[in-house]
């Protein structure tokens, strides 16, 4: 029964600052917006596409996708209305496309539309998206929480440079979702109420919703699991023992789900020596010793991944050595990934002639001591990892200096800062990365030679480790040409293995998303492939 269960209180320790995902791209904003505005289709908790505002998912089989893979036709379910009561039409969908592709708008989801040639609306309920070239995965535009549909009427004046002046629209978008914003306080709290015109007359069960932001993960966990002040807490990046202790509070429980998010150590394939100039540092190949297979293999062997999981993530982590750990068919199984072998690592190094020649406890490779700088962003779990891994690496005769950098600097792309992860002015660095949806093709592109950040590209580029292999590039090219799923899986596994074995990175932990829900909140289905709040319409109060 709609609006029968009172209020649902959700806490996001990162506060949403805008309700328009096209202008922000931050996860918190996308998820907050997903309570109000919706895409045509989205992924469910298993990563499967489900129709949302359309009748069915278009495929080649049902004729929704053209044979040459250049066109996809969406059929909007009739009768859907915006929260202001006006009908939802294909015109809104086309407008959303125009909105995001306006060159002055600075749309965060531009990649979704880059390959789109045109969006046509033959009638009120039909949207035809045409791509520039055959697209094996045509489910980018208007799919998932990142590209919901905006109301054309509301945003008509907000195209291009005017986008940021539409404060009212950005804070209070008219949507088709289960809730409407009553008050938006940026970076603080969002008050919402049930959408009167929601398509399912029985939903949402809650009359109002509050989405509070701020504080830290620990406080959010406490509020849900210990004091019961809130019903749902998002993304609790906390040590497992802390989570376990909070669960003892008896008010709620933690729920976990796994996507392709993976914590890894990137190995710098270029030389980060500070004595090189700023434009040569981390540009000139090779690294003095990190590309030596014995070195990076030994470093990987020295790591006790099960222990890392236990210490850092508990039920929200799994041991993996696969760069793309999900969907399952792409993942590889590496032998010895789950066992630590310090002695083996030492032996490997000894064998390769990398021994301690001057007796300072640090091995030398051709005269260069195995002395590295290990950087990461500031975060309690990462710092514990750093400490542990440093310890292990020192056991195999390396010297490790730790550095942690504030994440706003580390992940900010400021070309002027020496501390960004793209610049990689260090030997190894640790962070997590993932990709959207279920198709890793673009993500695999992150190890292509020409994606390496360098001065000419203003230090932009996704190939952080500067991994470069002709073989890899060629195989990736092949992937883009292949449509057959099984074949794609095979190529994917091959790419995965190449990066691991040729010293691109040391995968550590396959990370899940851990959120907490109150015991009295029902209907929560943790979804890592889309917004966590994707099915907030189904949530209800348990007695």
């Amino acid at each position: 029964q709609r609006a029968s269960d009172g209020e649902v209180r959700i806490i996001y320790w990162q506060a949403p600052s805008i309700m328009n995902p096209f202008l922000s791209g931050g996860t918190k904003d996308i998820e907050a917006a997903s309570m109000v505005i919706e895409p045509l289709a989205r992924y469910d908790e298993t990563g499967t596409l489900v129709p949302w505002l359309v009748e069915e998912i278009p495929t080649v089989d049902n004729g929704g996708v053209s044979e040459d893979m250049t066109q996809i036709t969406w059929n909007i379910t009739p009768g859907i209305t915006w929260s202001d009561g006006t009908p939802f039409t294909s015109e809104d969908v086309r407008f959303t496309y125009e909105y995001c592709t306006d060159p002055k708008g600075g749309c965060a989801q531009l990649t979704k539309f880059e390959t789109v040639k045109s969006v046509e609306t033959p009638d009120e309920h039909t949207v035809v998206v045409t791509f520039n070239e055959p697209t094996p995965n045509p489910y980018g535009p208007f799919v998932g929480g990142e590209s919901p549909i905006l109301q054309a009427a509301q945003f008509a004046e907000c195209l291009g440079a005017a986008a940021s002046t539409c404060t009212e629209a950005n804070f209070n978008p008219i949507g088709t979702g289960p809730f409407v914003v009553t008050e938006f306080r940026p970076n603080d709290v969002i008050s919402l109420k049930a959408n009167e015109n929601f398509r399912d007359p029985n939903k949402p069960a809650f009359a109002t919703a509050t989405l509070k932001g701020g504080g830290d993960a620990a406080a959010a966990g406490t509020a849900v699991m210990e004091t019961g002040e809130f019903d749902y807490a998002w993304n609790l990046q906390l040590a497992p023992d802390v989570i376990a202790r909070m669960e003892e509070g008896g008010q709620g429980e933690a729920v976990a789900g796994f996507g392709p998010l993976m914590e890894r150590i990137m190995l710098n394939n270029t030389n980060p020596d500070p004595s090189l100039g700023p434009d040569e540092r981390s540009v000139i190949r090779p690294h003095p010793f990190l590309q030596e297979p014995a070195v990076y293999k030994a470093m990987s062997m020295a790591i006790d991944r099960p222990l890392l999981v236990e210490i850092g993530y508990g039920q929200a982590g799994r041991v993996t050595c696969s760069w793309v750990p999900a969907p399952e068919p792409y993942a590889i199984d590496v032998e010895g990934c789950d066992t630590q072998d310090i002695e083996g690592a030492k032996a490997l190094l000894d064998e390769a002639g990398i021994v301690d020649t001057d007796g300072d406890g640090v091995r030398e490779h051709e005269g260069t001591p195995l002395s590295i700088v290990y950087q990461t962003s500031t975060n309690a779990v990462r710092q514990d990892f750093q400490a542990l891994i440093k310890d292990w690496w020192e056991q195999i005769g390396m010297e490790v200096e730790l550095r942690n950098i504030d994440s706003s600097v580390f992940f900010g792309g400021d070309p002027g800062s020496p501390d960004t992860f793209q610049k990689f002015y260090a030997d190894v660095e640790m962070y997590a990365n993932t990709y959207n949806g279920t198709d890793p093709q673009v993500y695999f592109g992150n190890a292509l030679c020409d994606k390496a950040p360098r001065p000419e590209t203003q230090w932009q580029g996704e190939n952080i480790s500067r991994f470069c292999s002709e073989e890899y590039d060629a195989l990736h090219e092949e992937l883009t040409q292949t449509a057959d799923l099984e074949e794609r899986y095979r190529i994917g596994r091959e790419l995965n293995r190449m990066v691991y074995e040729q010293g691109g990175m040391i995968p550590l932990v396959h990370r899940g998303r851990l959120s907490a829900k109150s015991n009295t909140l029902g209907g929560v289905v943790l979804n890592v492939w889309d917004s966590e709040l994707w099915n907030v319409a189904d949530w209800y109060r348990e007695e």
Partner: protein
Amino acid sequence: MTEPVVASPATDEVAIEALRDREPSRPPRSQWRDVWDQLRKHKGAMFGAGFLLFITLAVLIGPFIWTADPQQIDIRNKDMRPIYTALWDSGAKVSWAKPLGSDQLGRDQLAQMIAGGRASMAVGWAAMILSLVIGTAIGVIAGYFKRLDGPLMRMTDLFLSLPILPLLLVAVTLFRQPLRAGFGPEGGMFILIVTVIAVTSWMPTARIVRGDILAIKEREFVLAARSIGTTSRRIISRHLLPNVLSPIMVSAALGLATAIITESALSFLGVGFPSDFPTWGKMLADAVTRMEQFPERVLLPGIAISLTVLSVNYLGDGLRDALDPRIRGR
């Protein structure tokens, strides 16, 4: 009405004595002896000095007595409780090898306390002294040279409005590499942090000192010093500075506290020392999430910080009294 006292021959001497100089009752002693005697009478100061001495010795020679490596990870022995928990909880996981327990990675807490104390004390003292030097210098110059007063006070306003975090980030960006080259990763960061804390905390001292200098400058002995040809530099160093010592002492005590706390807040925000370099503030901040299971992890560094600050304050109080000859005389 009483009878007038009749003069007796002996009282002649009384009169002469009346015109003679009266000597102070106590024999003169060396200045520092005097200061020390006075200080010794101040109970709070003695407690403060004692505790500071203890802490300083503990962090300086502690590592030679308790030789455990604070960064040594011993994952099998993680989450140990301090030995004293065994008193009321016989089932607690304790061991004499880790008298104060261990953290979630099994690092020895006692060793961490010692190493953390070393860092915190060093940062606290260095930043406090630097900030005092800057504050006093600016305050004295602004108070003494009328022409510089306006500009310097406006500069104080400027620094008051500088946000510390971006400032630190700027400093880290600009200077980390050269400092790291010169002083090593920890030394470089130490210099950076100390400087930034000092640069953002000298303003109250400057204000207070300036006010006092303005008042003292009008006292006659400054004019007297000028009339005997004392140069401005010497007037400042010999006549003005000793007389503003007591507000400086107070600032010092508060400054040490703020420096230690600011450092911990910076570590907390992740812009401080490398993560494996313990400081009390960081130990405290890290342990807050596990406060319920392991209260000692917050209490030990918390108490250490508080006691240090407290002792500095008491010592400051005592020193102020002892250094002022007027009070000392009484």
